[in-house]
């Protein structure tokens, strides 16, 4: 009798374990469900935030939309799951979301020990300095003895200490709790320099009393490559998210935009024809329709358009392309060929 009981227990345990291993692939699950579950931030200017009408907008949100357009053919079929910094990885690990696009810095620790995979970089960020023009400073190396406004408890604080120590300079930290307070203190002249991630500095600059009196210095003292993240172990889904981003970058390089994508279907350029799924492998390798990249461009636009719209010159943030320009235009945005 006891033997039978034990064998039942063993079978049940084995069933549970195999059920854990033989999960349906994320792609099939998303297509069966009919919408994508995308993890975004609870509010990061230009990257993901709800607008007045409650629609999510931003550069990160556009990546979510592109994934939905490629997988489901409809960029609106998304459930946005707003996450804060602490719960973002668990939400992905537990399967509450299919992809995490939330300004997450790609680091060795995160890539190797959390059971996650970074699929690429959709924004190269880095810590920078905002100074008032009155100081007449052209480089961060001239900042010796400056009072620096900074948000406490962040890696920015540590990067700053490292940078000044390395260059044998002195500084006086003026620490605040929130972004907003830091910017207000800088505005009121409590410090000469404000330091934060560059993508945030431009946003903060726009609401100074006199934005034109402040400049962002060219130095970037840390590397913050931000990119989409997926669960480890589902390579098909990893490929889809990776090539979604690549297709957006490739489209910009080929000059295919949301407006001209239908015209481009008549193009003779073999690269464009492969991108739009008219020639070549199309969507077979990814297990998607052949027009997957066409849907991305048609419904979301290429990378350059998404950048301009959300953080670039046609947005209030007015961030220069800089590192995020295409490799052919002086940046480091580079997509492997779609062929």
């Amino acid at each position, binding site marked *: 009798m006891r033997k039978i009981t034990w064998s039942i227990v063993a079978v049940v345990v084995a069933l549970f374990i195999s*059920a*854990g291993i033989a*999960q349906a692939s994320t792609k099939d699950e998303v297509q069966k469900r009919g919408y994508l579950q995308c993890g975004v*931030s*609870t*509010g*990061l*200017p*230009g990257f993901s*935030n*709800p*607008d*007045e*009408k*409650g629609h999510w907008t931003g550069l990160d949100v556009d990546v979510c939309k592109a994934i939905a357009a490629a997988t489901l053919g409809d960029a609106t079929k998304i*459930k*946005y*799951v*707003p*996450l*804060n910094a*602490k*719960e973002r990885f*668990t*939400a992905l*690990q*537990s*399967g*509450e979301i299919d992809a995490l696009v939330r300004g997450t810095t790609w680091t060795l620790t995160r890539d190797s020990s959390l059971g996650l995979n970074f699929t690429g970089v959709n924004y190269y960020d880095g810590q920078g300095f905002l100074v008032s023009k009155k100081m007449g400073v052209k480089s961060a190396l001239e900042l010796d003895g400056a009072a620096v406004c900074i948000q406490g408890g962040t890696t920015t604080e540590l990067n700053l200490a490292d940078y000044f120590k390395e260059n044998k300079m002195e500084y006086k930290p003026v620490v605040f709790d929130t972004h*907003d307070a830091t*910017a207000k203190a800088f505005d009121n002249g409590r410090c000469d320099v404000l330091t934060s991630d560059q993508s945030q500095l431009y*946003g*903060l600059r*726009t*609401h100074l009393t006199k934005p034109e009196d402040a400049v962002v210095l060219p130095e970037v003292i840390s590397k913050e490559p931000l990119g989409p993240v997926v669960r480890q172990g589902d390579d098909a889904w990893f490929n889809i998210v990776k090539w979604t981003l690549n297709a957006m970058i490739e489209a910009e390089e080929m000059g295919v935009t949301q407006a001209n994508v239908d015209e481009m279907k008549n193009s003779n350029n073999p690269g464009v024809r492969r991108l739009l799924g008219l020639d070549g492998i199309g969507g077979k390798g990814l297990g998607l329709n052949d027009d997957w990249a066409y849907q991305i461009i048609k419904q979301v636009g290429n990378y350059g358009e998404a950048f301009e719209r959300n*953080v670039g010159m046609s*947005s*209030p*943030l007015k961030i220069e392309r800089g590192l995020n320009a295409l490799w052919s235009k002086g940046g480091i945005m580079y997509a492997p060929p779609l062929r």
Partner: protein
Amino acid sequence: MAVYITTPSPALPPPSTSVGVLGWMRKNLFSSFANSILTLIGVYLLFLIIPPTINWALFQADWVGTSREACSGEGACWVFVTVRFQQFMFGFYPPSEYWRVVVAFSLVGFLIAWLLIEETPKKGLVGIFTIFCYPVIAYLLFYGGALGLPVVETHKWGGLMLTLILATIGMFCALPIGIVLALGRRSTMPIAKSLSVVFIEFWRGVPLITVLFMSSVMLPIFMPEELQIDKLLRALIGIVFFQSAYMAEVVRGGLQAIPKGQYEAAEALGLSYWKCTFFIILPQALKLVIPGIVNTFIALFKDTTLVLIIGLFDLLAVVQSAFADAKWIGYSVEGYVFVAGIYWISCFSMSRYSQYLERKLHTGHAR
């Protein structure tokens, strides 16, 4: 011959410095040299604070417009609030379905008013309807999925609506569970007693933030992927358990204040335990602890903002996410003042109602 005046002469009016406004001021504001100085300093401080605040919030403020250009920057920019007012109220609920939320809240407002106002008839029937039928109606209205109402998933709920849902469900569930736990803790049955004690001490021993984090971060890891419990529901269960533990201790305080004679008298009349509890003990005990109960309710109402750390967009979170709109960076003060105003009005009304209730039920136990 001496003249005797037998009627008393009319009383003179008191000196003008001891009555009226002047007298009140003299007695309360300028009773001594030190007090006079403090009064003057106080008036000066008020003068420094109040006129600029009112100027900022009312006279120099901008009220109409659709973009930040409408704001002059001299006073408050309430345009930020008006533009997003619907989002602050309903979160991401689809605008075409707003009426469902309004109907659900109006209905519960009406029912509660019916129960609270003394003159209305048939309180028993309305009470039963509120407790047993209303939750079903509210669920259908908020979530939909039946009677031709489209489903609105909980991740679209937000703003003041979510705050009120969390708070009302928390209150409605915490009070009965708390009473049961309090009775259990005072019970002589060992199992009921120990279960109640363990439950109360466990939930009182952990901070609410921990409970919410557990529900949103740890719980999904333990559960199989197919079994996804709604995030809002997880948070709600955490809040209810947490608050009912506090409620239990408040109610227990009331139970302990009832003199032993009351129990003995009930027993002498031959009343059963339940009859004794419901007709003799609880009515007296609950009346004693109204301030404590309302205190717990107010704390619960404000604690609901903690759900913002698990990514639920309650009133505070939805306003904070609006600060992140690149078009509206820099209007955080207006947003926070708006939220503070709503919270203050809600909590103050609860507190006033509890005072009214105490006066109404005052039957001589107060000293």
